[in-house]
């Protein structure tokens, strides 16, 4: 998904002064992109909604510190990605990711577009793999940036990406083979 959200400076200035309507307008402008980012990284929709809420609580609290350097979406996205990764780390502490290599869905109906195949295949990746794929391939983060956010090495990020793509390929080939 390409984000091309231009937010007027006057709206940002009002939000920085604590104007409630301006903050609500920012929420409406970035609600879907933030949720989409979180939902693509996390398996559970409720977790993604929680990340959406945590992200905007942080935005509301810290917008005064936003200096206007770079696009506002970049600043908000960084907060959202950090919150989602934090949630992944917490869930990993609770339980090892046994779901990683499982296939939970059946074959797609005949004739469904490839896009749906990929979306379903993506759902079968571990949250760590989803996060790396989404941040790198869709959001355009570098391996260095991902490694820093995840508290891991660059090689970890690279190997997660390769592993995830190999996994996606196998799932997609398997599903197409059933049609």
């Amino acid at each position, binding site marked *: *998904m*390409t984000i091309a959200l231009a937010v007027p400076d006057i709206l940002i200035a009002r939000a920085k002064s*604590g104007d*409630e309507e301006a*903050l*609500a307008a920012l*929420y*409406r402008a970035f*609600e*879907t*992109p933030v*949720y*989409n980012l979180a*939902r*693509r990284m996390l398996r559970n*929709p409720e977790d*993604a*909604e929680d990340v*959406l*809420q945590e992200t*905007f*609580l942080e935005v*509301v*609290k810290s917008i005064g510190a936003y200096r206007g350097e770079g696009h506002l979406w970049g600043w908000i996205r960084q907060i959202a990605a950090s919150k989602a990764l934090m949630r992944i780390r917490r869930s990993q502490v609770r339980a090892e990711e046994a779901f990683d290599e499982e296939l939970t869905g059946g074959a797609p109906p005949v004739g469904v577009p*490839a*896009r749906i195949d*990929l*979306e379903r295949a*993506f759902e079968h990746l571990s949250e760590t793999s989803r996060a790396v*794929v*989404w941040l790198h*391939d*869709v959001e355009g983060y570098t391996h260095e940036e991902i490694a820093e956010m995840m508290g891991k090495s660059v090689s970890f990020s*690279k*190997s997660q*990406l*390769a*592993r995830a*793509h*190999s996994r*996606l*390929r196998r799932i*997609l080939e398997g599903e197409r083979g059933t049609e």
Partner: protein
Amino acid sequence: MIHCTMEELLALRANEGSVWARQHVDACAECQREFDALYQRVAQLKALPALSPARDRWPAIREQFVIARARRRRRWVASGMAAAALIAGVLVMRPFTGVPQAEVAQLEDVKQQSASLEAELGRYDLDSRVVSGRAAALAAELEDRIASVDGELARLNTVPTQPGPELIRLWQDRVDLMRRLVDVHVTRAAYVGL
């Protein structure tokens, strides 16, 4: 034949691949397909539709925002209260000449009421209390108005002031607002069992 690994293909995609990998992909139909498929997967991922949340989370965020704003204002009001107490001290120390004793007594009375209400609020840890968004918004409004009264009292402190209708009215306004603030924070909280 040795084919490219996924890591090598990803490196090629990032223009970081080895010479061998580039030459191999150019020559190997299988790896060329794999490389093209990689590009297609990424393009398809980017084209996935945006997902929207099932529920509107703004009301919960707004409630937290209102409560946090009320806390900030409360801290500000607390400093205003300290200023008002200072004003009261100055007035007590200053000899009132030619002022009806009834007005002096009335002023002392409302200041005493204000101090009692502040003490009552001070006995509760307001920041740790859970209040509804509506109550928090009402408290924030009352604190704003108290701050405004304190500002007026501070302004009067800059000029020689003696007990008079304006000063008494301001202190009485302050007492009324404080009483309503106590009602929001303490009485209603107790009523709902907080």
